[in-house]
């Protein structure tokens, strides 16, 4: 499932693309974002090469419109601290209520207590032990269920034997292979183990009000959690365990209503997992995209000693334009490079600017001038454009009739 890119040409080509700019490590958020616009070759190449799109956009003079308020950051940190306070007292309460976690299961391991360079190995050791001890004798009802059973939420039965392997693992350091590179995921989740079954606990500070939360925030959380589920499954598989020991139901912890009190909800991330697998597979086929590009093409920012880009902006901009972007207004909320690509679309007079739906309605007509020419009758339809031309002319006739 990991990016099985052969060492060699494509990897080298991607390194050339990145040049001397330090690679931007993929975090869970970035990996989850791979699915936002898979049809965009420019984005696929930049992500595959580990290029810092944010830095590139700033250097090009099109800084991304994203930013997080310090209030939101403080709130997020405070909420996470609250959930994990006093030996995860709140979290244990919720897991007991939601999943029937037995009273005895309270063992807590904070992977961050070991040095940074040891965390991944330490995580592996802990998970391996948990999988061996916890899984012993306890049949995993979920194993294999993913393929055969309809969606269902399962709860742990009470009275299971106390495992010695631990229950909560805070800050586990997981990894995934992406386009030939290992990406370490920032460890801001808790993994939770019971009877040899693992779950990812994702703590988010958006509110759940009367049982409902902002659907796009939940979707973003689900996509990120899916990255951790996949990474944990990969780790188990590498350790020789059944990857399906990791549940596809993640525990989403959010503040309830208008207070700080946390509430846990199970979120089924099977669809997000399927999408993620698809996108990671695609990353292994970047050679197709690379084939069409000149060998020496690079998106290098040429940073100086202080990390400041020195590459002439026009040169970088030209290099980027050698790759095809697929701009859509949705990019404005997902991609660092959105303003650059929007500007490009404006210069080209592309109907993409108006949204995917307009673009689809216009059939094969990609440019604004062309569409208007067909509507005015000042341009003869090319082959295959007869119908859209007829529709546009009709629409134009109606607009004129109603507006004069």
């Amino acid at each position, binding site marked *: 499932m990991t990016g099985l890119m052969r060492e060699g040409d494509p990897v080298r080509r991607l390194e050339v693309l990145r040049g001397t700019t330090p690679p931007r490590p993929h975090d869970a958020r970035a990996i989850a974002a791979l699915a936002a616009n898979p049809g965009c070759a420019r984005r696929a190449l930049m992500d595959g090469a580990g290029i810092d799109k944010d830095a590139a956009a*700033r250097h090009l003079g099109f*800084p991304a419109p994203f*930013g997080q308020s310090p209030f939101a950051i403080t709130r997020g940190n405070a909420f996470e*601290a609250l959930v994990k*306070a*006093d*030996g*995860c*007292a*709140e979290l*244990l*309460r919720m897991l*007991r209520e939601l999943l029937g976690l037995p*009273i*005895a299961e*309270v*063992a*807590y*391991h*904070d992977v*961050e*207590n*070991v*040095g*940074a*360079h*040891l965390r991944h190995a330490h995580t592996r050791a802990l998970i391996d032990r948990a999988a061996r001890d916890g899984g012993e004798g306890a049949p995993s009802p979920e194993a294999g269920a993913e393929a055969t059973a309809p969606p269902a939420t399962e709860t742990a039965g009470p009275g299971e034997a106390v495992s010695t392997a*631990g229950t909560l693992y805070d800050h586990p350091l997981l990894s995934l292979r992406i386009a030939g590179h290992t990406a370490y995921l920032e460890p801001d989740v808790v993994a939770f183990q019971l009877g040899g079954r693992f779950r990812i606990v994702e703590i988010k500070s958006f509110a759940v009000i009367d049982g409902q939360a902002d659907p796009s925030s939940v979707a973003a959380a689900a996509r990120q959690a899916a990255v951790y589920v996949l990474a944990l499954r990969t780790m188990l598989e590498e350790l020789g365990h059944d990857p399906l020991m990791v549940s596809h139901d993640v525990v989403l912890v959010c503040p309830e209503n208008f207070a700080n009190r946390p509430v846990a909800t199970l979120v089924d991330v099977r669809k997000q997992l399927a999408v993620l697998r698809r996108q990671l597979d695609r990353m292994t086929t970047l050679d197709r995209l690379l084939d069409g590009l000149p060998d020496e093409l690079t998106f290098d920012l040429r940073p100086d000693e202080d990390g400041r880009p020195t590459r002439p902006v026009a040169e970088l901009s030209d290099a980027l334009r050698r790759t095809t972007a697929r701009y859509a207004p949705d990019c404005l909320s997902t991609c660092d490079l959105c303003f650059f690509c929007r500007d490009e679309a404006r210069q080209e007079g592309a109907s993409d600017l108006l949204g995917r739906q307009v673009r689809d309605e216009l059939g094969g007509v990609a440019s604004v001038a062309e569409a208007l020419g067909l509507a005015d009758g000042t341009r003869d339809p090319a082959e295959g454009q007869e119908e859209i031309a007829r529709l546009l002319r009709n629409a134009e006739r109606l607009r004129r009739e109603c507006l004069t």
Partner: protein
Amino acid sequence: MGGRGARLYIVDLQIYLDIAKLLENSGTVGTLAAMGDRLDELERRIDGLRAAVRRAMRARDGATARVLRAELRSAERAWDQLVSGEQSPAKREPLPLVTVREQVHQGLRLLGATAQPRLIVAVGDAFFGGTLRSDRLTSLRRDEERSFRSSPFGRPYYLCAALTDRLSAARGLLTLSTWPLERRVVGPLSPRVDFLTCAIAVGGQRGGDERAVRLLIRMARNIPGATDGGLGPPDPERVIAAARAELRVHAERDTHDRAELARRAAAQLDDAARLFGAATLSTITKEKAK
């Protein structure tokens, strides 16, 4: 509405009239026009600086932003002074009668177990009319360690770090040097055991105010059987009984784990490390790098 000086500021468009009134009251009517000009100028300058800072931040130009920010702060101070009549509105915190160190000591003694700064602050609030803030506790442990190293055992007690199963300092867990090692090390079950121990201590404490009730509510919520599900304040006896009941489930193994850890700590660590934790590999490398 606690009525604790809750004030609301409704400012209408004619701020200058408000300011005029303010100035009138302070008997400086004659200089009103000049003041107005000065305010105008300051506001223009503040607006300009704010925009410049935000522009710099968007371009991630930290150095420029810092310089501009300093200028901005001084302009804002000048504006504040002009509007509110000389003295700066920044509140002076009253000097605490008891040192931070002593307050933490008090809190830990009450709790009787290793605890996070958050909980210690909450206990201080609830029972000692607290003036503690958790951000003040961050440097505490390092100060204690420094003091210990310069004159070992020179103080009657030290606030120190709990020790992990690797005998390194546990992140964000404070403990007391006067406690036996078994209480200062933490195994996998110890965070829960210590929480329950703390809940029993809080439940047994009398004389707190509403903040104490809220602390107990918060703790009781997370102990099975500690509340009747109602919203009223929990019965302390019930909380204690429930915490004890759960404690019995974990006690044996936790005691065993901690004894084992304490044995290892005693055998492997020197005096300072027994209090403040063994250096981890990464801290050693860092030290060497220096």
